[in-house]
């Protein structure tokens, strides 16, 4: 994919993945109100996005982190292999920590919170399209530290009168104690920005195996829980009507 030499005359091509149609409408409205962007395609599910992005080869893909049939993280990692010219931004309506984690795990160029003020959406898309990353390496370092940090004891004094002190320490054990050496290794390579294929080559593993490791990591680090809740809801028909493409 050629990078446009002049973004004013050649608009940045954008793909939208969000399970809420109303959000996609809003994003289209906003992006197309500027001359510099053109939304070339959209999808409501991970499966649809994976099918369409390689064909459309957009410059930037805006991916909702949590989808009824998977996560934007998995989509992002797949896209890096199937459409290497596409740069991804993770969209999330949770907090910065969650978003940063999702973006790093996805190997995305940045994240956007679902809010208008703060990082300008259009600026972020343009910035990423120009080949820059929005993620501060210092923060990635801290994120890894946080994941590996033996949580619990030293933070306990931060809060007063924790009734759940016991449950807390058990949780700490499950969070830090269960990452295997191989998972730690893969986590480091993910944080370095390697794609699943590159990690596979580096560690002499099949790409599919790396993918499984990533899923396992997400589950262990607590990301999967919320997604799963959403999937459960979708499968049991309690999700909103504006959900598209049910699994």
């Amino acid at each position, binding site marked *: 994919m050629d990078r446009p030499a002049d973004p004013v005359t050649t608009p940045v091509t954008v793909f939208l993945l969000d399970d809420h149609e109303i*959000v996609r409408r809003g994003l289209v409205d906003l992006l197309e109100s500027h001359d510099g962007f053109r939304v070339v395609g959209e999808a409501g599910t991970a499966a649809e996005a994976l099918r369409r992005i390689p064909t459309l080869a957009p410059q930037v893909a805006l991916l909702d982190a949590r989808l009824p049939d998977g996560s934007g993280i998995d989509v992002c990692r797949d896209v890096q292999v199937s459409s290497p010219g596409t740069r991804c931004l993770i969209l999330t309506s949770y907090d910065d920590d969650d978003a940063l984690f999702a973006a790093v795990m996805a190997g995305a160029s940045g994240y956007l919170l679902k809010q208008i003020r703060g990082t300008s959406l259009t600026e972020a898309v343009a910035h990423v399209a120009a080949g820059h990353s929005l993620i501060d390496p210092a*923060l990635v370092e*801290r994120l890894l530290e946080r994941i590996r940090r033996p949580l619990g004891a030293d933070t306990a004094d931060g809060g007063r009168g924790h009734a759940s002190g016991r449950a807390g320490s058990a949780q700490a054990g499950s969070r830090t104690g269960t990452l295997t050496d191989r998972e730690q290794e893969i986590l480091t390579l993910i944080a370095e920005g390697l794609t699943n294929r590159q990690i596979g080559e580096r560690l002499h593993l099949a790409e599919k195996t790396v993918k499984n490791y990533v899923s396992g990591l997400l589950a262990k680090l607590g990301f999967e829980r919320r997604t799963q809740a959403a999937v459960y809801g979708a499968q049991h028909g309690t999700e909103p009507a504006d959900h598209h493409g049910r699994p």
Partner: protein
Amino acid sequence: MGSAEDRLRGLLAANRSVVSELALPAVLRRIVEAARTVAGARYAALGVIGIDGRLEQFIHSGMDAEVVELIGHLPTGRGVLGALIEEPEPIRLHAISDDPRSVGFPAGHPPMQGFLGVPVRSRGEVFGNLYLAERVDGSDFSPDDEDLVVALAASAGVAIENARLYEESRRRQEWLRASAEISRDLLRPGLGEQVLVRIADAVLRLADADVVTLDFPDRETDAVLADADEPLAYAVRLVVGVARGVGADGLVGTAYRSGPSLAGTAMRERRVVLAEASGPADATLASVAEAGAGGPAMACPLVGEAGVRGAVVVARRAGSRPFTPTDVEMAEQLATHAALALELADGRADEERIAVLEDRHRIARDLHDHVIQRIFATALSLEAVTARATDATLRGALDRAVEDLDETIRRIRASIFELQEPPSSLDARAVLLEVVAAATAGLGLEPTLSLEGPVATVIDPVLLHDVTAVLREGLTNVVKHARCSAVSVRVAATSEDVTVEVTDDGPATRAAGPDGTRRQGSGTPGVRDPADATGRTTHPLERRHRGVANLTTRARDRGGDCTLTTHERETVLRWTALLTP
């Protein structure tokens, strides 16, 4: 005295009378009366031998109440009476005082010459002795008398055994009924603690105890016991949770060291332990002994699925008879009920908690999936329109609308976080929420907390320690010195630094100078408040400035700073720290 035939008839009548009664106290009384009639004696008595070999009961007949009162105390089993206890064979004497074992009579005791003593056996053990004195006709007791009383003693033994069996079956029946009642109670939800009280009451009644307590490990140390780590389990403190019987009201809440206590031993060894308190200061039974039941005692462990949860302590007053194997068995079974009640209560509480959590998750998901997405989408559309709007007033209005929607999203996000995360000391966000909530509990208003940037990622445990200290100090000052109507807290994290801001609209600001800005630190002892200079008492703001000094030190150590700024309508405490000082 009549013929031998009459006497036999008398014995038969006596036998009938004795075996036709089932309640033990009445049986004993009838035995005494029958013996007196059969032997033609003036005085008759039945001494029941206690566990210590002394006379535990002395049922007598033939002596006037006034005389009994004059003597003052009943025989305890010394002298000739004691001889029968030591050697359970009939004794027949012409005169008690002739016997070398005689110790004489207490003052006021009527003279007694002729004596006949016969042991009463029941279930192969000597239950007690029948004592007869002074034939009515003044003659000595004959060998015939002895034979008759021995024969009566045999049926008396059977009657006593029957009465005991009857008593036991009646108690078992009562115990079964209590058990069934408690089982029913257990299945009724919402009875809570009440079940434990009922169990304690049942034990108190059925074990004929004077006090019953249910003791549990102190909340803070209960985790330790579950580990079954011996030395630690020994150090656990137990607290009386439920108490019934004498001094029960004062007992609830009493704490004592588990280590030497009977309850502690029962819990560690997971079995019933029996003991006799050696006195009110006995460490094994401190709690119940102090309450006045310093006699025989037992403790049954409350064994639950996850370990021993506590113990039932049952005690009698000093001098009471010890607990029988039936008592123990019964207490043990009721303890099982109590343990079950605790497990069930836990199960119900878990269920409720899960229901609440599920509900919260559902609400959080709804907020996330419906509300936030729609607001965000609307804000996106408004933003798109704003870019095209040419009219400045319209632009301004649209901008404000977008900002409001953003703020709404932020608040909903905070709510989602609170709804989804159970309070945990692991997440910086959760800790900050809790600190703010705790520090402003007395304020009567809801502080707004806004967290910006990857707060949990940036704030490591050491920094979190500082940030929470700043929040506590800042908020405590607000609570103490400023009568404000709004407090907001902002914690912002970037890849370089962390900023904490506590803003309030308290009245302290009125005393601020025209520019309103004051800096703390720089080695000067703070800025003196104008109000203070005029000789009035220290102004609240002055005190607040002082409180800030130690926060300044914390900030400086991290390459940051701390300022307390007063504006027209608000006071802002702003604390910054670099991530890599």
